[in-house]
């Protein structure tokens, strides 16, 4: 009925400075209260309250304790080349310990037909070894040091239900939902209140958005060049002598676009069993919120590859037609004084000017998506009937499709589930869908 577990652990790792041991502990307790109320609440098959506290180690990657050099694989007429690495370890670098507190409840009803689990967690990462950015003018661009503290709180929920249990058909449904309530950067390094953690490569004066951790703010905030706004309305240049006449004006400061972290994530897993031997799995993943920047979108618009550069304007005329012929893109907004203004601009100038002036509003999208992550059909081969019992205990054959279908996403041009960088997609290859077969044999 009442359980408690206590663990004490010491880690001595070769990746840590010599002699340093990291001690972690955890205490978990749970109280299965359903044992007490078994007779009063027959519909409650299982109920448990649990609480735990634990610490885990944060280790360093191998070979990080000293500056080490490697020789370039190519030689220059027989001469070797060696470059000084751009990341140095801090001389006081050591491993760290992070702690988590959790409290939760597990409930199951109607003979395990219905289940619900809710967990609330609060974890603190203190002085974890991270790669902090420095000004490259010091000779190195990153220092691996014990800086970096974050605090995270959130809720995880799991819901399971068996809607149908019949002789030849049953359906098992499992849904998860996670919401992060807080993911705050509590400290970086002394004297540093902001750290760039991800960003696109600058190219010829075009600086893509960056993701920063700022003290006191949420983890992973995206900043980038953007449109100047007055009361939320984009400002348009009304000076006819300006080279960007009629186009959006750039905000002199970096614009805050939002956090790269999603607000909720979760999934739904369905298992259908037919005629005892056939299984169908339908697994769906979803995510809501968060932002990413699409470099492909930016260059695609600049070079006129994307559909958005060849649409019709509000007069029904292709935007690629000259403004003098009624074409052009319509810009709508306000002038420097806040009075409404609107112009028609040549399409190519418009798209070029946005990129050259580092105005990225149009290329930042939500990370929201709903995707059919896995679809599989399986058949449990009846080994008993095949007379191979002596050497084969079980055999299952299945056809599996992964990344089967992006059911919904806000951007049609790129799959938000396949983003490779923290700040977004930087001209990476698109995700792929795979279909395969699986034969699992048990001996």
């Amino acid at each position, binding site marked *: 009925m009442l359980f408690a577990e206590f663990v004490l652990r010491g880690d001595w790792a070769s990746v840590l400075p010599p002699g340093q041991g990291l001690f972690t502990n955890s205490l978990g307790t749970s109280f299965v209260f359903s044992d007490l109320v078994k007779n009063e609440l027959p519909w409650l098959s299982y109920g448990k309250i649990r609480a735990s506290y634990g610490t885990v180690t944060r280790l360093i990657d191998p*070979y990080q304790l000293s500056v*080490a*050099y490697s020789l370039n694989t190519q030689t220059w007429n027989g001469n070797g*080349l*060696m470059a000084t690495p751009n990341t140095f370890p801090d001389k006081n670098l050591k491993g760290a310990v992070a702690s988590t507190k959790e409290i939760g409840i597990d409930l199951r009803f109607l003979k395990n037909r219905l289940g619900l689990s809710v967990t609330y967690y609060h974890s603190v990462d203190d002085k974890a070894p991270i790669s902090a950015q420095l*000004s*490259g003018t010091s000779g*190195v*661009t990153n220092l691996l040091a014990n800086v970096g503290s974050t605090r995270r709180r959130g809720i995880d929920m799991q819901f399971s239900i068996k809607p149908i249990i019949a002789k030849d058909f049953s359906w098992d449904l499992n849904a998860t939902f996670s919401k992060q309530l807080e993911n705050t950067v509590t400290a970086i390094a002394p004297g540093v209140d902001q750290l*760039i953690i991800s960003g696109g490569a600058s190219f010829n004066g075009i600086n893509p958005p960056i993701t920063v951790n700022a003290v006191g703010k949420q983890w992973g905030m995206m900043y980038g060049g953007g449109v100047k706004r007055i009361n939320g309305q984009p400002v348009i240049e009304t000076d006819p002598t300006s080279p960007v006449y009629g186009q959006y004006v750039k905000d002199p400061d970096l614009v805050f676009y939002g956090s790269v972290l999603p607000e909720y994530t979760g999934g739904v897993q369905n298992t259908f069993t037919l005629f005892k031997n056939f299984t169908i799995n339908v697994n769906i993943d979803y995510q809501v919120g968060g932002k990413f920047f699409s470099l492909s979108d930016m260059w695609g618009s600049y070079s006129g590859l994307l559909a958005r550069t060849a649409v019709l304007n509000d007069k029904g005329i292709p935007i690629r037609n000259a403004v003098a012929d009624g074409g052009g893109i319509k810009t709508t907004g306000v002038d420097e004084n806040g009075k409404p203004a609107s112009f028609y601009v040549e399409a190519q100038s418009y798209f070029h000017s946005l990129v050259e002036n580092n105005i990225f509003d149009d290329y930042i999208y939500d990370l929201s998506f709903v995707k059919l992550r896995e679809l599989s059909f399986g058949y449990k081969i009846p080994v008993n009937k095949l007379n191979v019992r002596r050497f084969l205990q079980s055999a299952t054959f299945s056809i599996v499709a992964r990344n089967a279908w992006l059911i919904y996403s806000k951007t049609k041009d790129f799959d938000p589930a396949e983003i490779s960088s923290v700040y977004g997609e930087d001209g990476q290859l698109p995700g792929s869908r795979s279909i395969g077969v699986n034969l699992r044999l048990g001996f």
Partner: protein
Amino acid sequence: MNLFKRVPLVVALAAGLVTGCEKIKDFGDTNVDPNRTTTPNTAALLTNVLAAIAGRATQQNPGFYCQYFAETQYPGISLYTIPQFDFDGIYAGPMYDCQNIINTCSDPLTSPAAEPNGSLNNQVAIARILKAYHYWTITDAWGDAPYSQALTGGSIQFPVYDKQEDIYKGILSELRGAITQFDAGNSIKGDIVYNGDISKWKKFANSLRLLISLRMSKRYPSGGDFAATEFKAALTDAAGSIETNADNFTVVYPGGSFRNPWYALYDGRKDVGESVSFISLLTGLADRRQLSAIYGSSQIGVPYGRNREYMNNQWGGIFSQDQWSRILNDSHRAENSAVDVIHAAAILLARAEARERGWTTETLTAEELYRKAITLSFTQWGLSEGEATSYYNNVAVAYTGTIAEKINKIALQRYIALYPDGLQGWCEWRRTGVPALTAAQDALSSSGNIPRRFVYGANDYSTNKENVQAAAALLEGGDSQDARVWWDKN
């Protein structure tokens, strides 16, 4: 299990724990990367620096500003969009490699590992010279920059920005010190430019001193001032300076993994070409460096300073015929072509100007130095001395006129001789105003003027914000591309 059976088990476990513990903590060399070394090879660091150094002399962007080059399909920099170029990569890359050579050779713990690569003094002297060259190219483009607090390997996290005047004085002092530091010890390994020839390194260092001093001419114009004094000292130094093309600081690319930067520019792209304004200047002088298709691959220039609409529509037909002039002809743009980073013609023209200004009183007259420089430039590019002589007979080239006119002719020949080093061409145009350049017709910047500096890059604004802002506050108009660097006095 009864108690007696449990005890031996517990004792065995405890014994194992106690004896095994110390063993567990000693990991030996598990955390030592077998593929890397903790002491750098200074010869390999030197080769690394020299392998990339021609990049400083083959920059396109300042070449757009001084109108050597023009953009074909995607005009942007030529229209003065305000790009933000970063210098931290130069500091963290080749400059810290130089500093690392100096540190490794100076620290008694690590210097024994460096000794097989040459005398320690020689290695340090060369690293100081190369570091000075890099600082020079950085401060000439951006202005004030970290110097005294830079390259500490992370000990100083927020280096202050030193004034350009202090950087100039600092690098001149470094070059002076380096020349006297050379000793007669073993010559250095890994030198892919001068092959360990110390006398050529000394000439290179003195040549840099000449160019750097002359660049301060607007700040220290007269013969008794700091610039003239430095110039004279470098000129009369026993080690001498670069006087023939054989002493040029030239990087010869092996091809393959290390290719000539101009080759790489055209490898799959056609974004840049020789500008119409530069070609017409040279054609007007009947300059064989252009007419014999050396500076460019043809006589058809790329229009300068026009927007994308014009380049794609009006000029688009000429672009697709592909006969427009690329930077340098094909034979100078092969994978294994050489790049002259500092060459004799530029040094002799510097001496001619100093002679004409009355800074020096060397035996050769300004006119003799001027003619010699032109001949050196012609022969550097494979033309004959005879062709240089007939070029000299052109009225616009001949060394005649008032002192000011003669200095302008020197400046014009220098502008032509420095091609295709965009940075040096832009610096000299800023200093002398020669030739008269017209700003881009379709300029996108608010002032529309030819930029006079690079604005500070985005990286330092995020990692060293206070110091960048302090440096920007000292500029007229803030961190703008129209503000002038210290030597570019109005």
